[in-house]
């Protein structure tokens, strides 16, 4: 079993157009490293300088990981991680 990662439209060029891909890891950080090995380039769109980019929302199941433990958030088989670019502006 693995963890399902839901990919937003704007990042699907890294996943050959797939809306969802599988990855593995015990924490979100490991999961993203694993994702990077399968889909090179994607990590930089999610992480900057050791933390999640400010305008990218990452959810573990129904929670925003910012309110859990950021990149250190534990993840396990059967979880769903959703990535959504924040909708923001001035």
């Amino acid at each position, binding site marked *: 079993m693995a963890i399902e990662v839901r990919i*937003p*439209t*704007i990042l699907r060029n890294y996943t050959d157009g797939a809306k969802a891909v599988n990855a593995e890891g015990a924490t979100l950080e490991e999961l993203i490293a694993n994702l990077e090995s399968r889909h090179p380039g994607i990590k930089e769109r999610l992480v900057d300088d050791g933390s999640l980019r400010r*305008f990218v*929302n990452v*959810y573990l199941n*129904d929670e*925003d990981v*910012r309110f859990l433990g950021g990149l250190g958030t534990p993840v396990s088989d059967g979880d769903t991680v*959703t990535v*959504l*670019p*924040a*909708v*923001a*502006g*001035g």
Partner: protein
Amino acid sequence: MLSISQELVDKIVAHARADHPDEACGVIAGKDGVPERFIPMENAERSPTFYRFDSLEQLRVWREMDDRDEEPVVIYHSHTATEAYPSRTDISYASEPGAHYVLVSTRDEHEVEFRSYRILDGVVTEEEVRFLP
């Protein structure tokens, strides 16, 4: 070109007026590029110069659109003291390549500016808006 019903335009403008002087924001969901379902969003920043969708509300709404096979056809927000043209931050955070970005300005109490843009890779292209009865 954006084709949108007058009823949806009126809803966007009413939302922008109601939240003035803070910026208002939201989505019109639809299929095949046709805007249909009005979804006003909370501006988590509650600011006259910035907007950001509340992250949990966004997850809920994006999932709902997914379940209904809809897409965010229009993403709108208001400017409350400046013209209805995308700001630098609007351009750098634009992340829905398929969406029409609608800007409404409420700086004038009586007249409203309603304009639509495509924002792709940092490039803004204004487009014609056709108001449908």
